[in-house]
């Protein structure tokens, strides 16, 4: 094979930095259900540093039936099953029975780079999670980033885990995953998660073409000089067809303002539809043979780059507004303050990103342009560094601030290139969501408003809309809170019907708490009294009795692990809310509840 690096295919997504973050992480899995072990499997394979499994159950050892033939006892978790191995080594070692130990053993086996460990607790309901987390982290020498996955746990246990993670000295990101019959959910909890490299799919390059006018206070001098040094009319045809569109657009802007060649003199860049059309026609008129000059066609296609301005995301602008010398708690804060001061002395412009997209061009012109953008970006970065050093000096003279806010050159460089991609995720705690606790009336209105809006966009088959099934699951949880077990325990027909009626009662209560009692979609589905729909959701949930269906567990385990990777690598944008997978119809959605 051409490479010996088994992580090659994933390095192409998150690079060496992402891989390093993974290798310095420790994942704690509470609950060894299939959804839990599947989540962890997808984290062990890409090379996390270590994991720790916590559970309170045992696995019965395999029994041979009387005739001696081994009855192939089926199990529903690929990583948790009666211990074969000890039974084949002459019975010297007793078979493992701890579910946590068995899961840990089979998960570690997936990747020799990962260290696995486990804790058996007498009961997950009473476990002292804070102490367990502390002992797990203190036993490892490196600076481990923690993340907790809680799998298929009843709400009372989830709430205590949620609280511990939320209030931990450095809040621990929590991923809550569950599979229940043909349904599954994933919920992320993190009070604050900052991302610098969100790597959005479609993002326009930072070309600053709109500054191409001498009256602008923030002229990109080197670009202006370079563009002015080129006289389009004097170029012979091959060269004319290989002028990069970047330069063509600059020349077009110039013409737009000067009103050359019978065009009206303009005072502002194109805004209206008509003006944009005119601008496009102006570009076309500059070409000598439009059908053969790819570069002019590209210029027309990218004309909007001439008059659009990249904006920093709104939530980040708010942060910038609020950050000040007294509130520096992290390296992210320090970078934000540095950016704020930079923008103040640079006419509100952040550092230039410095890369340009590929475009039809001669090598020579392209390389020169690339150099111009790279150099300016480098200069901006140096200025940022000076400003940052200044702030750090201020801070250290003010108090004996520790180096919790140290920022390496590489980190600064990455920040400068990603100013437009900065992203912030803040979720509510699971506990406050479950208990319908809102910080303010405003918050309550916003969340209920969003849920209402979601009901106006149901799935093609309305009864399969994932949101409805989430409400049904919440009703099952409410049942469990009350009775200590999930509905459907007694599988006789009358018992199932009776449980379903109770679940339906909880559905109505939850719908009311969500402010959706009068909602059309809810009334025609969850609350419908039509023969075929009456109590239908409640009955289906009751039929499941929290059954573990491996495929569903694998789907949500996959989603959970994907989000965990984003949280650990601090790259890409994590989801905010609950992912609900409806495996009945193969439909999913994300909601804020």
């Amino acid at each position: 094979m051409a490479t010996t690096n088994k992580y090659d295919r994933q390095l192409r997504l998150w690079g060496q930095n992402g891989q390093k973050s993974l290798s310095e992480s420790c994942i704690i899995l509470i609950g060894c259900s299939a959804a839990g072990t599947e989540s962890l499997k997808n984290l062990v394979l890409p090379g996390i540093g270590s994991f720790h499994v916590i559970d309170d159950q045992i696995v019965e050892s395999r029994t041979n039936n009387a005739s001696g033939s081994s009855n192939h006892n089926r199990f529903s978790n690929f990583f948790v099953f009666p211990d074969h191995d000890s039974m084949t080594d002459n019975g010297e070692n007793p078979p493992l029975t701890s579910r946590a130990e068995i899961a840990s053993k089979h998960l570690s086996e997936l990747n020799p780079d990962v260290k696995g460990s486990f804790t058996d607790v007498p009961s997950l309901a009473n476990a002292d999670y804070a102490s367990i987390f502390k002992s797990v982290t203190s036993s490892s020498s490196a600076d481990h980033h923690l993340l907790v996955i809680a799998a298929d746990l009843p709400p009372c246990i989830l709430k205590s885990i949620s609280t511990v993670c939320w209030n931990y000295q450095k809040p621990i990101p929590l991923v809550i995953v569950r599979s229940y019959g043909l349904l599954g959910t994933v919920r992320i909890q993190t009070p604050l998660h900052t991302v610098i490299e969100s790597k959005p799919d479609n993002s326009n390059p930072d070309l600053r073409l709109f500054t191409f006018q001498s009256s602008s206070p923030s002229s990109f001098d080197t670009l202006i000089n370079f563009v002015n040094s080129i006289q389009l009319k004097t170029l012979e045809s091959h060269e004319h067809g290989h002028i990069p569109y970047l330069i063509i657009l600059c020349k077009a802007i110039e013409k737009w303002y000067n009103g050359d060649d019978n065009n009206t003199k303009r005072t502002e860049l194109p805004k209206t539809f008509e003006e944009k059309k005119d601008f496009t026609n102006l570009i076309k008129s500059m070409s000598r043979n439009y059908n053969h000059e790819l570069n002019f066609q590209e210029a027309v296609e990218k004309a909007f780059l001439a008059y659009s301005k990249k904006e920093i995301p709104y939530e980040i602008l708010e942060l910038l507004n609020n950050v000040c010398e007294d509130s520096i708690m992290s390296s992210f804060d320090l970078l934000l303050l540095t950016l704020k001061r930079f923008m103040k002395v640079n006419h509100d412009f952040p550092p230039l990103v410095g890369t340009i997209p590929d475009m039809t061009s001669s090598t020579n012109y392209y390389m020169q342009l690339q150099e111009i953008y790279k150099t300016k970006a480098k200069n901006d970065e140096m200025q940022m560094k000076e400003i940052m050093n200044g702030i750090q000096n201020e801070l250290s003279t003010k108090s004996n601030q520790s180096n919790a806010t140290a920022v390496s050159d590489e980190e600064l460089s990455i920040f400068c290139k990603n100013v437009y991609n900065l992203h912030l995720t803040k979720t509510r705690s699971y506990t406050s969501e479950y208990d319908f606790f809102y910080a303010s009336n405003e918050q309550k209105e916003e969340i209920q408003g969003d849920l209402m809006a979601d009901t106006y966009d149901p799935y093609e088959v309305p009864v399969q809309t994932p949101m409805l099934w989430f409400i049904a699951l919440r009703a099952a949880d409410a049942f469990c809170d009350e009775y200590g077990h999930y509905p459907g325990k007694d599988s006789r027909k009358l018992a199932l019907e009776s449980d379903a009626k109770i679940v339906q009662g909880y559905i109505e209560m939850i719908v009311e708490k969500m402010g959706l009692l009068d909602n059309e979609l809810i009334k025609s589905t969850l609350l419908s009294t039509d023969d075929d729909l009456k109590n239908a959701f409640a009955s289906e949930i009751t039929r499941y009795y929290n059954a573990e269906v491996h495929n569903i567990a694998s789907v949500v385990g996959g989603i959970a692990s994907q989000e965990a990777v984003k949280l650990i690598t601090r790259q890409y944008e994590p989801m905010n809310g609950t992912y609900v997978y409806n495996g009945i119809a193969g439909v999913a959605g994300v909601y804020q509840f």
Partner: protein
Amino acid sequence: MSNIPNVDVIDLDSIDVTNLNRQFLFRQKDVGSSKAEVAAKFINERCPWMKVTPHHGMIQDKDLNFYRSFNCIISGLDNVEARRWLNATVCSLVELDEDGDPDPETIIPIVDGGTEGFAGQARVILPRITSCFECSLDSFPPQKTFPLCTVAETPRLPEHCIAYAFTIQWPTVFPDKKLDSDSPDDMKWVYEKALIRSQKYDIEGVTYMLTMGVVKNIIPAVASTNAIVSAACVNETVKLLTFCSQTLNTYMMFMGKSGVYSHTFVYEKKDNCPVCSATVRKMQVSPKMTLNELLQTLRDGDLRLQAPSVTAATSGKTLYMQKPAALQKITKVNLDKKLNDLIEDGEELTITDPLFPGTSLGLSIFFEN
């Protein structure tokens, strides 16, 4: 894990170390062995109720009777051509009854999944009932390569330098040797040549990793996305086999780069799908068009055929046959003949192609005035 014991698995590949970050049935010690065989062995041992039968080879090596013997087919193929072949094969198994309706006993569902980085999709194909893979061919445009003039004359990116090294320099220096992208020596050669070229043009960024990515057209792959898609596929399969619930109708997309976005929709059947609809296509051509030019159009146009053979439907006259060799020799003389010397205006041609085993396409040719 759903207690479906009889599974056959076909794969022509051997295990590579770069598979280990996600293909969890394989370990370091298995590198170099057959994927199908190692996968079957692992499952049969871990789950003793399972009887997985491996087939190390190409899907095209199996005949119709083989595919006919299954209740459901799951496809995790990694290229469009293989999917088209499988799709056409399974669709050709469907028999129509006297009323022209598909006989349900002969419909074998195909559940197809694919991933790319953080994105993926799972779909259910019920041959002749729902859209088939060919109906969606347009959403898989042919791979874009770099324009030759850019690579040869105006390189700007490190990728252009790499493309130059392996598409232009290699065939010049090694005219008789095909580049083996799995050979470290071959790849090192390409990397070094690309580096030299990049230095000549002052282009930065040529690395060994990028070289491999460009030459092998590497698609990033991770454990989580593959787990999601494969599980979604199996979920549909289990429901289809057990009738315990409903079926995905028909296509589910996952996008996990920003947040998590899922979208489920019906991929509509294409009216003139060459595989699952019976329509005879119409094509207007210049009377001067040669048979060879027609074949070119069938390859490079919308139909994207591989190696078409042509027969005149009514007269049964063979115009051009790619195989067997003897027939190809006899009919190749027709390639340069003008179509209007070979067939009548409006005549229907029957086209066969290795991509569509067991089926043929009807194409009526009309001459422009």
